[in-house]
Each structure stands twice: as C-alpha cells, then as structure tokens.
C-alpha cells in the first residue's frame, strides 16, 4: 500500500507553522552548563530576595545528589553541561505586541497568538526562551482582583501568596527535574482567582523555545480561591534542531474549597526536546481539577499530571492523548491520590503509536485508609498504526479502604486494514483514511478542548500521518 501516490491535503504553509527559527537574540545569557554560580547568577539577574535565592541553591544541591529516574525512558542523551540555563531575549516586557523586537513579534504572529487573543481569550502570556515577554489580561478581570502575571513578577509583587504555596506541592526533593527546575526556574505563569470569581474565557500561556541547546524551566502556580473557576491553556512549540534541548517545568495548582480549574496543554515541542515536566494539583473539599493533556511533540516526554484529592467530594480528572511517531517516546499518565471520603477520579488516556514510536501509559490510583466511598475510573486505549511501534500500559493501584470502587479498562487496537480499505473505497486516500480514523479515535479528547485548538490538533495529526506514509 505504501506505493500509493500521496495526496497532499495539508496547507503547505502549515507544515512550517511551528517549525521555523528566528536568529537568536539575547540581552542576557548565562554561560553554558550548570553549577552553584550559575544558579546564583540567574537569581541575581532577577534581583531576587534572599528567600528565593536560598531556595534555589538548596534545590541545586538536591539536583546534584539525585539520580535520573531509574524507570521509564532512556534519558542518558541529556548532557546537563551542554545547555544554556538562562537566556533573556529582551528586557522589554510589554502588553503591546508592537513593542516587542521584530523576531519575537513575528514568531507569535506566525503561530497565531495575537489573533487568538483578539477573538476568544481573557488573557495571554507569552514566554520566549527564559522569560515572559508579553502579558495582558482583560481589564474587568483585574478589577475583580484576578492576578495573571509571570512568576518572576509574582515573587516580587505578591511575596506572601507565593511563599505560602510555592514548592509546597512539588518540593525540590520530588525528583531530579523538579530539583533542577527549582534551582534555575524562570518565567511561567502565576494566577490567583479571588473567591467566587468565575473567569469565563480561557487564560492562555504560550511557551516558545527558539534557541538551540537551551533549557526552558518555567514555573507555574495557580490558586483558585473558594468557589471560583478558571480555564488555563498552555501551548508549547519550538523549531527543530539536531541538537538537544530540555524543557523541565514545574506546575503547582491549588483548587480551594468548591473551586473549579481546568488546565489544558497542547504540547508540540520539536523532536530534539526532552520534555520532563512535573504537574500536580490539590483539590480541596468539593473542588474539581481537570487536566486535559495533549502530547504530540518532543523526543521524550515524561509527564504524569496528578491530583491530590484532599477534601471530601473533591473530583479529579485527567483526559489525555499522546501521539508517538518515529524516534518519539511519550511516557505519560496520571496519578490520583484519594485522601478524603467521597472523592472521585476519572482518567481517559488515548495513545497512538506509529513509525516506530513508543507510547506508554503509567497510572497510579491510591486510596487512603481513612477515605471512604471513593470512586475511580480509568479508561486507557491504545492504537498502533504499524508493527514497528509500541504501546505499554502500567496501571498501579494502592487501595487501603474496602469501600472504594475502582475500575480500569484498557484496550489496544491495530489500525485495521479492512477499515482502511472501507474508507478508501469511499474515495479517501490512505493518509486521509488514517487521519480520519486517528481523529475519530481521540474524538473523546478533542471535544474537550476549545474549537480553535481542536482544529489545530486535527491539522497536526494530519501532518504526522503525512510524514508517516512515505
């Protein structure tokens, strides 16, 4: 079937939409490699207080002592000495795209961020290399007390809130990359939603790595106060280089009593990036935390969004999709820790492997002894497009309370040749048929994300299918 002529149904400009690079620009750039001096220098660049500098140095010490994870994908190709840990592209952070250096403005124009902002977002933050260079938020939200700013500014402007929550869910000791992030973090979003405020349109952060052999270490902290709600979306892209780059973010989320948070990620890093991210949320009584996690890019991803359900009737969900193509390993999953009674969790994971890609689901469900009447449901579906590719599922459960109702369903399907023939007999090319079926397979996920992004996701998947049928 591979000798069928290919019909290119992708907008030719789309292929280049994310994969383009601009000349590297910098006003401040750390020396390549990492040591305590570099950590101190980064802190100095930011004029940080003693508390944060101390936090960083302690974290660096932990980083040097921690081993790489012994399980999961091979991370040996990461050379910590060959990475630039801090790069300030411009010192003009602005709320006006036109004030930014041409290279940066053009980047976001091409990606389409200003257009999205105009049409359907309540606030936008854009990080380029190490720092947020653009941020804006609807005035009404500011008037209601909503804070949406970069994490660096938050440390200076809201030290009390930051101190109360920063590093509390994900301490530097959690894992080697959380330690590294804690030592060299820069940028990321800080969001605070006051009591009973509902942010109706999404807030969006856009992360771009343009430089080569670089590490981006954003740090995000979201606090939704009692009875409030917010939807936060992050998108990530980078141009493809042959050299290795690293993205190691830490995201901590606090959903206070009866708050509701949805956190949507569309990750489309280039394949030279290792994406090693720690994401954790705490849902208090009656709160709802939803992670919507779409992973298409990166060479290696390790990411297991977590919800600690600490108050009764709290709800957590992770709805995720992963697409692993040639030379990609997507190791993703979810963790739900039921620490209180009547808490519920829901996980849907859909993975697609093709062209020799490896996708792995790792899940952990725990139910504490004191947590009664817990309900948890996991559905884990994998689709293999060829026999070179692999899919693994590692569900782990630790149930200490007998009243828990925990279920796990898993399925694996190979893209059926008969189905391909059926679709092709209606006039679809092989690529169209594959794309359509893959998109059908993840329909449960795409219907959860805003239309503007599901259209984008659909195109990205078509593009991967195009690459695949050679």
């Amino acid at each position, binding site marked *: 079937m591979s000798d069928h002529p290919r019909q290119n149904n992708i907008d030719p400009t789309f292929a280049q939409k994310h994969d383009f690079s601009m000349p590297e620009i910098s006003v401040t750039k750390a020396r390549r490699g990492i040591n305590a001096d570099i950590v101190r220098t980064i802190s100095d660049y930011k004029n940080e207080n003693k508390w944060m500098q101390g936090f960083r140095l302690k974290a660096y010490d932990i980083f040097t002592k921690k081993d790489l994870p012994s399980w999961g994908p091979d991370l040996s190709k990461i050379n910590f000495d060959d990475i630039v840990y801090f790069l300030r592209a411009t010192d003009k952070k602005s709320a006006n795209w036109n004030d930014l250096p041409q290279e940066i403005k053009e980047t976001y124009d091409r990606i389409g961020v200003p257009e999205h902002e105009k049409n359907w977002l309540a606030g936008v933050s854009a990080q380029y290399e190490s720092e947020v260079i653009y941020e804006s938020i609807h005035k009404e939200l500011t008037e209601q007390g909503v804070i949406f700013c970069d994490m660096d500014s938050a440390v200076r402007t809201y030290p009390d809130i930051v101190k109360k929550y920063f590093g509390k869910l994900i301490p530097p000791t959690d894992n080697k990359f959380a330690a590294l992030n804690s030592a060299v973090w820069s940028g990321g979003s800080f969001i605070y939603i006051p009591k009973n405020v509902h942010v109706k349109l999404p807030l969006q952060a856009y992360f771009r790595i343009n430089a080569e052999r670089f590490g981006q270490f954003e740090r995000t902290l979201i606090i939704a106060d009692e009875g409030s709600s917010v939807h936060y979306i992050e998108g990530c892209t980078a141009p493809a280089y042959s050299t290795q780059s690293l993205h190691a973010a830490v995201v901590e989320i606090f959903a206070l009593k009866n708050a509701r948070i949805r956190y949507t990620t569309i990750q489309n890093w280039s394949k030279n990036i290792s994406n090693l991210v720690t994401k954790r949320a705490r849902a208090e009584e009656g709160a709802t935390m939803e992670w919507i996690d779409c992973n298409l890019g990166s060479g290696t991803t390790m990411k297991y969004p977590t919800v600690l359900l600490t108050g009764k009737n709290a709800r957590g969900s992770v709805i995720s999709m992963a697409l692993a193509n040639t030379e990609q390993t997507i190791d993703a999953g979810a963790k739900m820790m039921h620490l209180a009674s009547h808490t519920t969790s829901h996980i849907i994971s859909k993975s697609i492997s093709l062209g020799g890609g490896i996708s792995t689901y790792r899940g952990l469900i725990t139910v504490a002894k004191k947590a009664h009447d817990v309900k948890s449901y996991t559905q884990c579906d994998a689709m293999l497009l060829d026999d070179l590719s692999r899919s693994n599922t590692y569900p782990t459960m630790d149930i200490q309370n007998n009243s828990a109702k925990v279920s796990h369903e898993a399925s694996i399907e190979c893209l059926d*040749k008969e189905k391909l*023939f059926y679709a092709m007999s209606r006039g679809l090319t092989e690529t169209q*048929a594959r794309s*359509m079926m893959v998109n*059908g397979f993840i329909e449960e996920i795409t219907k959860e994300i805003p239309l503007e992004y599901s259209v984008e996701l659909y195109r990205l998947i078509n593009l991967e299918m195009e690459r695949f049928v050679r």
Partner: protein
Amino acid sequence: MLSIQKITVKTAHKEILHDISFDFLPGKIYAIMGVNGSGKSTFAKTIMGDPAFDVISGNITLHKKNITKLPPHERAHMGIFLAPQSPLAIPGVTVQQLLRTAISRDIVTSEVLLEKINKMACNLEIKKELLTRSLNEDFSGGERKKMEMLQAGILDPKYIFLDEIDTGVDIDALIKISAFIAQMKDTDSQKTFIIITHYNRILSQLPVDEVLVMQNGIITEHGNASLAEKIENEGYQK
C-alpha cells in the same frame, strides 16, 4: 464499460478466483448469486481494489483504462462503489465527516453536502440521530445497509456493487432500499448495479437484466432474470 479480463486472484494463502472474464455494461442491473465461499465477495472486493487480494494475472479495465493496480480511492473517484457485506464501525467518525473527507470542497460546499445527506436520509428513512453518531457503531443490520445506500447516493458512482445489501434487513427496509436503487437509476439511466445476493427477494423488486452464478471461483452460469427464479426453486445443483 467495466471489463474483467481473465483475472486470477489469490490471498496470502490460496487462489480464490480462477481466470474470470466478464463485461459489465452501463445502465444494466446484474445479480450475482452463489453459495457461501463461491468467490462472490472476493470478486467485488477485487474490483474495488482490496489489498487483501492479489490479482496474479488478467486485467480490470474501466472505460478502457487499466485499473488493475490502482488503489481503492482512485477507483472510487472513477465511479466504482462497493457496499460491503458487513460495513465496519468507525468510532468517532460520523457519516457526514466521512463523506466530507471523501468529496472535495471544490466540488460541493459543506452546506450543500449536509442538505443532500439530510434529504437522502429522509428518503431512506434513516433516523436523523444516526447521521451524527459514529458510523455503523451499534447500528442495526438494516441501519448499516441503508447508510451504505445513502453513501452510494451521495458519492454518485457509476458501477455500484451491493454485497448482500438484503441480508439482515427487514421487509420495510428492503422495500426502501429497492426503491432507492430504482430512483438512482431513474435519475441516471447509465448507472450499473451489481447485486450480490442469496435470495430472489430483492431481485423481485428490481428489473434485473442479467444473472450470474458463481461456484468455486468461476462463473458457472449466465442468463436472464428467470435464472434467479430457477435457482430459487431448484437450488444451485442441477
């Protein structure tokens, strides 16, 4: 004309069709009959270009163009259609999405396409909700077969193979399907239908021109509509 010229067809394991030749003429209705395993479905799938079957010798030509090696979608674009015996479910994909992908926007806009789909669904008495559900998923036999007819109606092919379109279908649905075929034929008298069936039931609803009988991978008999009646009464063994 769709011309089958001395084709021999095999799967990975065995030869199924042996040196078959036949010319399907525009505007006629054919019936292909035969016991299970006689090669009827393989014959239709081979003409549609199913990669599960290898044509090891012979040719298939459509309007004098050799299509033996063309992929299925190109044959579809040239006007061949196959409603398979058991249409497969495609999770997460609606019939609207399938047809939207199949037909270029240059040919028909989404509004017009949707309107046509709704009209034909109404015509075939397909429940509206089925149009926005995953295609064939949890559909009844009759619903699947009607949905195949709807796709044939929209794609507007010239040579239409209907493999057991009458199986698993109640009498009301069968009448609807037959009427739909007749209507397609009224609209375009050059359309050719090839109806693969075990039963005379659907054939009695339609003005069949020719009947072919297949047995063990070859065409053993060829006659007019009365052949179908004879088979119904006497069976395939003479």
